[in-house]
């Protein structure tokens, strides 16, 4: 039997959530959900774990802080200390108050860009990548559940479709792949 992918199209995020709940409680694995805006509360239903991008951002930020302090120490204290306006660059700890603004800005720079780049790579969204949403309406006003038969061996595609018809679904599309 060929593998099938089933798309259940809903008109409202709440109806989609009810549909997803019903599928999951019948032991069917929901592959993914596509929507024009974030559907709040869908993640625990279909078993999506919290993203770790916040941690990534923190790590990049800390790296930025260290790089900034190391760089400033090397440029202004170690390599070529200057005395400008009677304010000599003597030691890192003595000049640190004046070094805080750049350290802060560089921390933010690294945290923001590090996280943004990680985000784009993890989402597989980069310039020129092809669109991979199953239906063009999913970026407009439709909310779509994707179920794959090869992930649900206990259920036939007919059973899944039957179950979906019991929810407030707008239309059900099947595709071979």
């Amino acid at each position: 039997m060929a593998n099938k992918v089933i798309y259940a199209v809903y008109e409202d995020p709440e109806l989609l959530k009810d549909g997803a709940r019903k599928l999951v409680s019948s032991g069917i694995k929901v592959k993914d959900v596509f929507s024009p805006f974030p559907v709040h509360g869908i993640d625990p239903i279909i078993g999506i774990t919290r993203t770790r991008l916040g941690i990534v951002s923190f790590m990049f930020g800390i790296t930025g802080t260290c790089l900034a302090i190391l760089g400033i120490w090397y440029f202004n204290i170690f390599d070529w200390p200057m005395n400008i306006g009677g304010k000599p660059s003597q030691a890192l700890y003595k000049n640190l108050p004046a070094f805080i603004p750049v350290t802060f800005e560089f921390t933010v720079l690294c945290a923001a860009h590090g996280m943004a780049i990680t985000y784009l790579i993890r989402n597989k969204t980069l310039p020129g990548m092809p669109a991979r949403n199953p239906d063009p309406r999913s970026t407009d006003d439709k909310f779509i559940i994707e179920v794959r038969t090869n992930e649900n061996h206990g259920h036939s595609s007919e059973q899944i479709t039957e179950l979906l018809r019991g929810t407030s679904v707008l239309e059900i599309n099947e595709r071979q792949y």
Partner: protein
Amino acid sequence: MHSEAAIRTPLILGHKTYHDITNDIVAPIENKAPRGWYVLMGIAGLIAAYGTGCILYLISKGIGVWGLNKTVDWAWDITNFVWWVGIGHAGTLISAVLLLFRQKWRMAINRSAEAMTIFAVIMAATFPGIHMGRIWMAYWVFPLPNQFGSLWVNFNSPLLWDVFAISTYFSVSLVFWYIGLIPDFATIRDKVTRPAMKKVYGILSFGWTGNAKAWTRFEEVSLVLAGIATPLVFSVHSVVSMDFATSIIPGWHTTIFPPYFVSGAVFSGFAMVLTLLLVMRKVMHLENYITVKHVEYMNIVIIVTGSIVGVAYITELFISWYSGVEYESYAFINRATGPYWWAYWSMMTCNVISPQLFWIKKLRTNLAFTFFMSIIVNIGMWFERFVIIVTSLHRDYLPSSWTMFHPTWVDVGVFIGTLGIFFTLYLLFARYFPVLALNEVKSILKVSGESYKQEAQKHHH
């Protein structure tokens, strides 16, 4: 589902569906631009071209063509720089600070306010660039080994802090803006029919799918970027103010400067957002999304920040007397009664007195009056920077060098030119970019939409 109190004014008027929101925003991009757009674009483009010409003339001749002299060695260049950076602050405040406070009314205006931020910061960055004189040496502001000709840059200097603050602010704002744009570009990509447009928006949308995990990440990234953009925006204008505050010029050497500059920045930025949005909502028929309530909220921000600015002016005046420093007190007496009295009192009228009119509800919900006031506030804030910079410099410790500043046609041309470039960029944005954050506005439709609220009300009784 989260529901909202019936007493709250709806943020989306009329009976809209998700599809209507997409149509209302994407249709102007797909259709031919209205004639008004070409007219405005023509005017802005001409001014931009003239300004670019002035900038090129300035670069080829050197900054001697400005009206600067030995005493007033900083004038319109830095006034314009601070003014433009200040205008930029409102966009970040709306998209970051109001996101942290979960203010839903930000959703209809954040996209265009952020665009304004980016264009304003580009204009601001032009001024330090061109006032270096030798712009081809501009890369010397970055830490470069001594062999490049310059010494290592001085990290003790507020001018260098500015380099890092402005470049970080610009690039982070740009990324924040673009990450929000990606899902909306995907909406346009899936909606338009012309192949060339589909291709272009396909590239811009980075292949966005809108699956559940992508949205989880999207929300996390938005929240974290808002969290770090908030201290960033406060740091940027604080650092700009330290360009002055860390010097020992009477009138500049005050510790009140960072909060005073930041609130002034938000004040002028909101005025510019209003100037732009009041025109845009009319021309692009966005009255159902950018409602009178949105305008009223922004006017309330203007009262608050305008009052902070007023308190700062008066504190500054009081301290100049109370400190007992005669040079300091002279600087302020000279501001109010010296040859630049007209600049000082324009600033006081526009920034301190006029925003107080917004306490009257009739006035702050009147669109024509708001538009007029938004221009007044921006004029006032330009004068604030002019007053701080020029009146503090023109009478220094040596009365024999006292002088006045007279702008030349290049000073004026460059300033007007940046306005032209700014409006050109903004018009291009309004034509080709989704001017509302579609994905955010859709997410509040069933909570804050007028027809849905009425529906909920009926069920309730």
